[in-house]
């Protein structure tokens, strides 16, 4: 029970840190801090609340494989969108076309 309370306090401290740091202009470090702190919070929840810290290897393997599969999706999908020139039809707008801003 003591561990749960400590982890909870750590999570709230990390939340305060990420919220406060996002208000200070740090350039690219803002995004890096936000992602790093989110990953730290996720690790605390997975290791202590979801008990991966004391689990058998199989459960950890399932968690890691799911993250790897997600990483593949991001990597391959992202590489496609970033590096390829997208040919548009003559009637297709280059920007998202919606009715926004016409009020």
């Amino acid at each position, binding site marked *: 029970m003591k561990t*749960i309370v400590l982890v909870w306090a750590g999570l709230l401290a990390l939340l305060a840190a990420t919220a406060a740091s996002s208000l200070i*202009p740090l350039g690219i470090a803002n995004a890096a801090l936000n992602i790093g702190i989110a990953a730290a919070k996720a690790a605390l929840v997975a290791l202590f*609340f979801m008990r991966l810290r004391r689990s058998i290897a199989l459960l950890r393997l399932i968690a890691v494989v*799911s993250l790897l599969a997600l990483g593949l999706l991001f990597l391959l999908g992202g590489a496609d*969108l*970033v590096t390829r020139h997208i040919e548009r039809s003559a009637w297709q707008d280059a920007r998202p076309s*919606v009715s926004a801003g016409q009020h």
Partner: protein
Amino acid sequence: MSARHAAVRTASGCAGTADDARARIGMWVFLASEIMFFGPVFFAYLYGRHAWTQAFEAASRSTDLACGTLNTALLLTSSAAMAAAALRAEQGARRQARRGLGAVVLLGAAFLLVKGYEYRQDWHEGLVPGPGFHVAQAADQAAAQLFYFVYFFATLLHALHVIIGMGLVLYCRGLLARGSGQTGARRVEICGLYWHFVDLVWIFLYPALYLAGRAS
């Protein structure tokens, strides 16, 4: 029967039955598939942030930081309550476990209330995609609108998971009231895994939707 209930070293490292181990593995595999369900939403966000950085950051600044932070704190606390309830259920302290589960449901309901209040604000501020949509400081309104498509899709999908999670927790609470021993403790633990996963998704949604471009 004896093999089924024999104490083995299982997933949590504590003594448990083979049924416990099977239930944990089943839930983890399900959660792995859920990651692939939420993942593409984050991918859409990343693509938008890369392609229309200014509009996405302006749109992110127009979300309600106070509500988002409060909601994150509520969900993190509910996860701690869930972990405490699972521990108590395992130790056979059913009354305390039920109290913990009650706290989880109340915190989940508070989360949904805050989110509902936020949606109401969004509606009044013209942040819902459609005619009349407008985000201040966004050069490209159409791209800002894409941010809000992602925002509403992600938060509504997440809210749906919170509601399902609350239903599961209430079910476990009823189960403990009837005194179901090992089965009850196992179900609390398994439903807890689902609840923590929903918390994990929010942990990443929070910086993406509420913190991006705050300082710029």
